């Protein structure tokens, strides 16, 4: 968001004398008269409805997913009694308009559209304070309304905020400040962490805020952190694909690419941009067992794109449903399972260059599955049902789905132990009253056995931590190929949690970047694994050494020499796909092809680098 515009609005609201452009003021006055026309006129019995004072238009544009058509900001300031129209304008997929944060006791709150659609809402606000809206399918789309009472000093945020998780926290609390800073960072690409600069400066302007009587300046939320890019000393094996989902690219109107990184040199090999097909928010990838193709979901669209791993040539673009989020294959059959996040199913597609739809697995009403996973033995598929607060365990032979309510808010990603006994579901907004949680699911009994409190050591009011469990808003959460650890990217705390699967406790918290999102494991040369972590609002990939459980390096995903990239170079890190896949169920299938002539010499070379332990021998 452009802070200058916010500043203008704020000073106006605070009565500091700066005015909106004359035309707008004139319009406002006129509109006010017209809306009251007929009052006291007996002949007119009709009563006018609400006239929106501001608009937020939902778009596919990174950062400004809710956009004020007046100034392009993701934030509007209105007065008590005024209304805001929230509508979907320039977006290729369906969304929900859902309250993430609101004022306790506000009339007609929370707002929540149960199912994704294209439906708009006009929301009237009676209580001053901060209100944040999101989409349950794409839960980092943020738009904010500040209802400011002109009679009070500063911009009113209210004394408390109510979170969608049920928690009510003071606006002076650490968690509220984290949320507020994150809102400004997420919706302002200029504030995203840029590792080509020596420091990350989140400089917020001096705008007086009123936290229910406590006055602070917005610039109190500013931060400055040094940046350091460092390549891991030990190379990896093969390559790593990262969805740099927000890159602006010349020649297309939608956003994002798939960045191919050479794990031997840590150099970018290429970026697949999908210019001709207008690739839209490439979110998550998988490959066939011979690593010929990359299967690519388009999360803010309805499509699955398949391209050649080596050349980047696009073979097919298939419409699969609303907001396809993740794709994975079933070990043994190589059939694709695509989670249809905006609907209630996982689509099944034939492998190869092009795809016949083989069927669909219903995950239950209003489920909206996001980052599913399949067990190494190919027996079970588990879906985190973002819109239902449940997970579904699907027996892939019978395709029977069992929905297990977990009481969580936005379950978003799944990891399964290689032993095939337990699945882990990261819950973006926790399991009330836990702010941040991961549910452990017993696959045999099909029951939730535990919720791991990912923020057990964090005091949300003071911000103090007393141990490693302080990860907030967990997203992708795979289990290491050896079954020892669950590694989770936490988007709000900008950290990486490591859970020991033997004790189900957080044993480590590592620093990451704003919008930490995608995690996947790859092979480390000479033995062991790396966890690769991508962050939406930074332009590096964080590499975690799974032997030392330390950050091994941060690799720049921006390619400054690529003139096709016109903005947000290297940003939007989400899906990660290291090849060779280290998970034994899939790796065994690829190893079987070794020497048959079906594998590219490059792939044969990667397989030769693997140690017997890595191969699972």
């Amino acid at each position, binding site marked *: 968001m452009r802070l200058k515009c916010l500043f203008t609005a704020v000073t106006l609201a605070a009565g500091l004398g700066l005015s909106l*452009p004359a*035309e*707008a003021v004139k*319009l*406002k006055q*006129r*509109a006010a*008269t*017209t*809306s009251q*026309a*007929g009052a006291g*006129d007996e*002949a*007119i*019995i*009709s*009563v*006018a*409805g*609400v*006239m*929106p*004072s*501001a*608009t937020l*238009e939902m778009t596919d544009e990174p950062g400004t997913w809710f956009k*004020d*058509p*007046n100034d392009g900001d993701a934030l509007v300031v209105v007065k008590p009694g005024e*209304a*805001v*129209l929230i*509508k*979907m*304008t320039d977006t290729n997929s369906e969304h929900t308009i859902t309250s993430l944060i609101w004022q306790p006791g506000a009339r007609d709150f929370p707002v929540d*559209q*149960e*199912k994704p*659609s*294209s*439906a*708009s*809402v*006009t929301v009237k606000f009676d209580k001053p304070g901060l209100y944040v809206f999101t989409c349950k399918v794409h839960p980092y789309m943020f738009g904010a309304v500040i209802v400011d009472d002109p009679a009070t000093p500063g911009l009113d945020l209210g004394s408390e905020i109510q979170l969608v998780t049920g928690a009510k926290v003071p606006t002076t609390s650490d968690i509220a400040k984290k949320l507020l800073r994150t809102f400004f960072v997420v919706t302002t690409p200029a504030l995203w962490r840029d590792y080509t600069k020596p420091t990350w400066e989140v400089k917020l302007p001096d705008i007086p805020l009123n936290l229910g009587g406590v006055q602070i300046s917005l610039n109190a939320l500013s931060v400055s952190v040094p940046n350091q890019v460092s390549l891991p000393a030990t190379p990896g094996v093969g390559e790593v694909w990262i969805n740099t989902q927000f890159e602006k690219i010349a020649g297309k109107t939608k956003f994002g690419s798939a960045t191919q990184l050479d794990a031997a040199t840590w150099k970018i090999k290429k970026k697949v941009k999908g210019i001709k097909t207008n690739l839209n928010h490439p979110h998550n990838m998988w490959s066939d067992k011979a690593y010929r193709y990359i299967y690519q979901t388009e999360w803010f669209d309805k499509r699955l794109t398949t391209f050649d791993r080596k050349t980047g040539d696009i073979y097919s673009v298939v419409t699969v449903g609303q907001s396809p989020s993740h794709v994975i294959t079933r070990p043994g059959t190589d059939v694709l399972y695509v989670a249809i996040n905006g609907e209630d199913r996982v689509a099944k597609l034939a492998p190869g260059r092009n795809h016949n739809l083989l069927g669909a697995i219903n995950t239950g009403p209003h489920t909206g599955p996001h980052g599913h996973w399949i067990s190494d033995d190919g027996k079970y598929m588990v879906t985190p049902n973002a819109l239902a607060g449940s997970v579904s365990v699907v027996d892939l032979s019978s395709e029977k789905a069992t929905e297990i309510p977990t009481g969580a808010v936005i379950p978003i990603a799944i990891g399964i132990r290689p032993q095939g006994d337990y699945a882990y579901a990261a819950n973006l907004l926790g399991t009330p009253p836990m702010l941040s949680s991961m549910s452990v699911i017993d696959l045999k009994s099909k029951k939730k056995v535990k919720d791991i409190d990912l923020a057990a050591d964090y005091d949300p009011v003071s911000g103090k931590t007393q141990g490693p469990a302080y990860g907030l808003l967990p997203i992708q959460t795979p289990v290491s190929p050896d079954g020892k650890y669950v590694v989770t990217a936490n988007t709000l705390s900008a950290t990486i949690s490591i859970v020991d699967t033997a004790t189900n406790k957080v044993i480590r918290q590592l620093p990451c970047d704003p919008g930490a999102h995608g995690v996947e494991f790859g092979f480390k040369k000479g033995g062991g694994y790396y966890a690769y972590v991508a962050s939406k609002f930074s332009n590096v990939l964080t590499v975690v050494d799974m032997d030392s459980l330390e950050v091994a390096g941060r690799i720049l995903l921006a390619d400054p020499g690529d003139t096709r990239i016109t903005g947000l170079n290297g940003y939007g890190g989400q899906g990660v796909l290291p090849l060779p896949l280290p998970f034994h169920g899939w790796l065994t299938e690829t190893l079987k092809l070794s020497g048959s002539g079906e594998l590219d010499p490059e792939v044969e070379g990667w397989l030769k680098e693997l140690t017997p332990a890595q191969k699972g021998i």
Partner: protein
Amino acid sequence: MMNRILYQLGLLLVLGLSQQAWAETHLITLKAARLPSGQLAYQMVSHKIEHSGGKVEDITSRYAPGPTIPGPTIVMTEGDTAKVTLEHGITDSQLPVSLHVHGVHYKFDSDGTTRALNGVADQAAFPGKPYTYEWIAAPGTAGTWPYHDHAFGDPKVGAEDQGLYGTLIVNPESGKVPALIDGKVTQVNLKDIKREFILWMHETTFWGQELNHIVNREIPLWTNPTVGARQGELVRFHVIGMGTAFHTFHLHGHRWIEPGTTHVVDTVNIGPINRQSFVVKAGEGVGTGDWHYHCHVVQHMQSGMMGKFRVIQ
């Protein structure tokens, strides 16, 4: 004045009921502007009627004074023509903005499309360069028609979705419309209709307006309004669709006939740019009350797509 009426009546008697005798020319200036909310809207700048005898009547004051959604409701009669000049008042944009009208006749250069679509020229207003359209409400064009932008935005196909739309009512030259009154299909005189309610169904919201013929004024009613009348008054509804969604308009307690038929209905399908006008007698057979109206698509109802038809004594 009296002389002119007598003269015209005489002329009518001599020439027979010629349409030309009553034909009017409308000189209209509209402006496309941005509302404080950031939405776009049309505004009436000036509407003058040139009567056949040469008398010019300025009816601008009947309209709402600012930009509104829906835009100004323009009323013509079969046989009338209109010269509609559009001004570009969207101060933060250089993109062309236009008027594309449905239903009435016009020549190619009044289509309101861009060169990218029509292959010839931008039939649109630019900042400082208004564009004039000519509409002919030829015999057979009676009905309620939408007009909307067909140029603004990228890729220049129009910003109707952002609020640039309005209503054109072409009344039949006969001055009568069929209606279901007291259980019978009958012809009612347009001059007996006291109020007209214009309801646009866009996404999950009704955007309303009233043409009140008692005080001769257009009243903007914005979103999901209460429309009101006295029991027994003849009122005409104009329901129009916009956007991508399909709706089913339902009004409680009242029935009407589908135009051109004798089918009695209380719910009609409204797709994008579909429209329906109908006359009801307020509270007929059911009395006073706040009669609900809404879209019957459940998801739309749940999103608040509803209002009231208030019938009072």
